[in-house]
């Protein structure tokens, strides 16, 4: 039995976790996990809420009843005032319908189950990590011989210097270019999502605006809006440009935003982008820099999946661009995701890299609210410094991603479904508009529903990504095996055949 629960925002936001997006993650991976808890059996329109034990709880309207603990937010007594900030999370403003499933697909145990293709995650190279950790994990964390003074006491709240050094080397490795990273410009945070939020707090005030190219990762708005109160004005990218960012579009959006009274503080680009998987080439980034200088705004370059680029074209990091710039660098800030690169989201480690000293100073202080555990940092230091492992991992991971992408896209092509050409990331961006009845968001959501109920596939509809053209869907393929891919294609065929 399936329960559909509308939840605000993200499923697997900017590669990090968000709004309970991981519940299906656990579901779909490990049947043996006991995560099918209350969180699945939620009431419609209500976020999962725990009931206290040993309270018998339930509806309590009578003010004289002792048990004032109500499981239903709607019935929370007036005395439990909670700020609008909290409220904005529990009401669905832009619902992204999320299928919690009691029926997750498993190749052998449940081959007819729902296949989860909306989780932006990569398990293709987990075995490489596991192997390394199996051999080196404990020693790297605790020290050999046991040396707990490295992990027990207070450490610098913006990250260990050794880790910053290791990250600098690691990033150069990923870029495959001699770009030098200065560790004193780094601030380590508990995940890339948190890095983006901290930067937002530093660069914009409540009510200001960032321009962000769309389609974007679902729930991205939440990251900058929820506590920092910054609005996103989408810069639409079109299929005619293969969803590449056009500076003309950026210029137009900026002017429109200004006319409407928005105070634009910056642009956030994600490279490789999610969901379209596009790389920003050198020329566009230089144009972006010019644009930002002209308008006197900031650029945040979110490169948390830089290591997951697998295309033929070269990946150009904003850091590479900045190496050649010797003035007016104060407006550029990068975000890296260590746990994302290593496909080990459980580690939760992200990096802010800013060319602005004041931003580095402020972020370092803000990082105290979002720190990385010392044992985790030690583990990362060892892992990232193991150059032969890093080499093997990056290469192997890229190959596997590329292979899976090719396989998946070829499969879709056979069904007559075209995709935008992706060069990185964990998903493909497919044009399913042929199968929708009415060429609008309603039609798209109807197709999503059909995909879920008929094809038993959960994919991300483009409207959740703020895509202006209906019919595009994000299919995440990096948690599948090749056999799974054939199953997926066969399932999608149910829809394509029905439409013929």
């Amino acid at each position, binding site marked *: 039995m399936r329960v559909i629960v509308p939840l605000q925002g993200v499923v697997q936001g900017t590669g*990090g*976790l968000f709004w*309970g997006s991981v519940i299906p993650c*656990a579901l779909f991976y490990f049947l043996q996990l*006991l*995560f099918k808890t209350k*969180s699945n059996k939620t009431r419609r329109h209500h976020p999962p*809420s*725990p009931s*206290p034990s040993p309270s018998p709880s339930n509806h309590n309207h009578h003010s004289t009843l*002792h048990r*004032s*603990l109500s499981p239903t*937010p709607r019935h929370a007594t*007036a*005395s*439990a*005032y909670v*700020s609008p*900030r*909290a409220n904005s*999370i529990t009401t669905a403003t832009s619902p992204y319908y999320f299928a919690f499933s009691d029926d997750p697909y498993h190749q052998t145990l449940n081959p007819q189950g729902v296949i989860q293709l909306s989780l932006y*995650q990569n398990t293709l190279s987990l075995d490489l990590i*596991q192997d390394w*950790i199996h051999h080196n994990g*404990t020693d790297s*964390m*605790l020290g050999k011989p*046991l040396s*707990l003074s490295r992990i027990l*006491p*207070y450490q610098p709240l913006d990250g260990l210097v050794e880790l910053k050094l290791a990250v600098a080397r690691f990033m150069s490795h990923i870029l495959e270019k001699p770009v030098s990273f200065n560790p004193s410009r780094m601030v380590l945070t*508990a995940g890339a999502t*948190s890095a983006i939020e901290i930067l937002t*707090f*530093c*660069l914009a005030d*409540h009510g200001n605006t960032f321009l962000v190219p769309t389609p974007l990762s679902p729930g991205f708005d939440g990251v900058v809006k929820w*506590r920092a109160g910054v609005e996103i004005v989408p810069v639409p990218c079109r299929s005619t440009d293969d969803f590449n960012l056009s500076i003309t579009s950026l210029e137009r959006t900026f002017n429109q935003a200004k006319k409407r009274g928005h105070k634009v*503080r910056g642009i956030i680009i994600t490279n490789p982008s999610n969901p379209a998987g596009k790389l920003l080439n050198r020329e566009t980034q230089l144009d972006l820099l010019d644009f930002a200088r002209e308008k*006197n705004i900031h650029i945040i370059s979110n490169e948390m999946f830089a290591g997951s680029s697998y295309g033929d074209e070269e990946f150009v990091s904003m850091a590479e661009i900045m190496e050649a710039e010797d003035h007016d660098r104060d*407006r550029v800030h990068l975000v890296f995701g260590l746990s994302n690169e290593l496909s*080990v*989201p459980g*580690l*939760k*480690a992200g990096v802010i890299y800013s060319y*602005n000293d*004041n*931003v580095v100073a*402020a972020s370092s*202080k803000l990082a*105290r*609210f*979002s*720190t*990385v*555990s*010392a044992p*985790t940092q030690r583990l990362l230091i060892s892992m990232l410094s193991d150059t032969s492992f890093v080499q093997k991992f990056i290469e192997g991971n890229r190959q596997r991603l590329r292979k899976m992408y090719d396989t998946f896209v070829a499969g879709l092509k056979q069904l007559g479904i075209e995709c935008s050409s992706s060069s990185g990331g964990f998903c493909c961006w497919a044009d399913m508009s042929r199968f929708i009845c009415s060429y609008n968001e309603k039609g798209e959501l109807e197709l999503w529903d059909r995909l879920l109920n008929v094809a038993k596939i959960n994919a991300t509809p483009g409207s959740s990504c703020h895509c202006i053209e209906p019919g595009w869907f994000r299919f995440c393929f990096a948690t599948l095996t090749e056999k799974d891919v054939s199953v997926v294609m066969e399932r999608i065929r149910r829809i394509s055949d029905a439409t013929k």
Partner: protein
Amino acid sequence: MGIEIEQPCVELSNVAVSETHGENSPYFAGWKAYDENPYDEFTNPSGVIQMGLAENQVSFDLIEKYLEEHPEEASTWGNGASGFRENALFQDYHGLKTFRTAMASFMEQVRGGRAKFDPQRIVLTAGATAANELLTFILANPGDALLVPTPYYPGFDRDLRWRTGVNIVPINCDSSNNFQITPEALEASYKDAEAMNFKVRGVLITNPSNPLGITIPREVLEEILDFVTRKNIHLVSDEIYSGSVFSSSEFTSVAEILEARENRNAERVHIVYSLSKDLGLPGFRVGTIYSYNDKVVTTARRMSSFTLISSQTQHLLASMLSDERFTESYMETNRERLRKRYQMIIEGLRSAGIECLNGNAGLFCWMNMSPLLEKPTREGELELWNTILLQVKLNISPGSSCHCSEPGWFRVCFANMSEHTLEIALQRIRDFMARIRTETETESA
């Protein structure tokens, strides 16, 4: 020569340029002095001794021993393929069930089993610093106020106000009644907030108190709970030192009072806890919010996405925290060692002619140096603080950083060093006091 056009500087946010992080206050200035000239028993015996950091190193060896004897706990992410996968991919803001359960049972143990904690109400954050900020985001709007008894932990000015835009209005306590919180002080503070046009959203207490090092008596807790109920506001009880009470029977948690009241009006109460002080694991960054309010739990949980504890750390600690034999013995030994340290510093200070507040908890003592002040003012206190920093080479925390209404009080930490170092520090104080006495005698001669 042409006039250069200045490149317009790209602006930063108000948060970025604000001084609310407070790192220019004496509390932090002392740290800088320490960083520049840190004491080391062998390499720098005349350096500054850090007595401003509330860190517990006295029971370090117990944790070490445990990990040595239980190497399988440290094995990253469990044994076998499925164990690894499930933890490596795990980033659910609910947190590992085993870990939450372990935290709940540990919290029960710290309170001698006098209160029960439901693992479903536990929200994990990367440290109590994050927990306090998160709760403030949830319970109040920018411009609102939280009432906080003085003296309070200097970090609150930053943690509760900086990004949240919330104000702190002090509940003034003084030495006339050993800095206890009184109903009058609560009311006065509420009125002060109203006079400033702040909407009061809650009271935040630290129990045991930092910097006072005392537990809040049961009757006072009852009064506070009644007050917040009357005013229809929240109560946040920061109990991060609850396991550092020298004698466990002397601590009453707000959780116990709620149980006695059958959880009536409990939805306004939230407890903050951490492993940083009681278990001496500040490097692990483990904090938690325990809320009796469902909506707060749900919201806090989602908001904790910005401040998660790595699944690896959760896994590492889950077994250790669930090992009741270990935690029982650790708590007992830890309390005893802290008590001994406390005795040592109190007696040492007394022999130097300095009296302290009669404390029963924490990693510090609250020292009264007001008789030594040139002027009974904040300036006088800072002058003395500066002298102690530069001449005596001790970094201690001046009461003014803690917003204490009476000048001359200082917080002195004793658990972040060896006994030997503490002895050195006490000797320096004795010498200093002796010098002062001689000077005073010479002057009056």
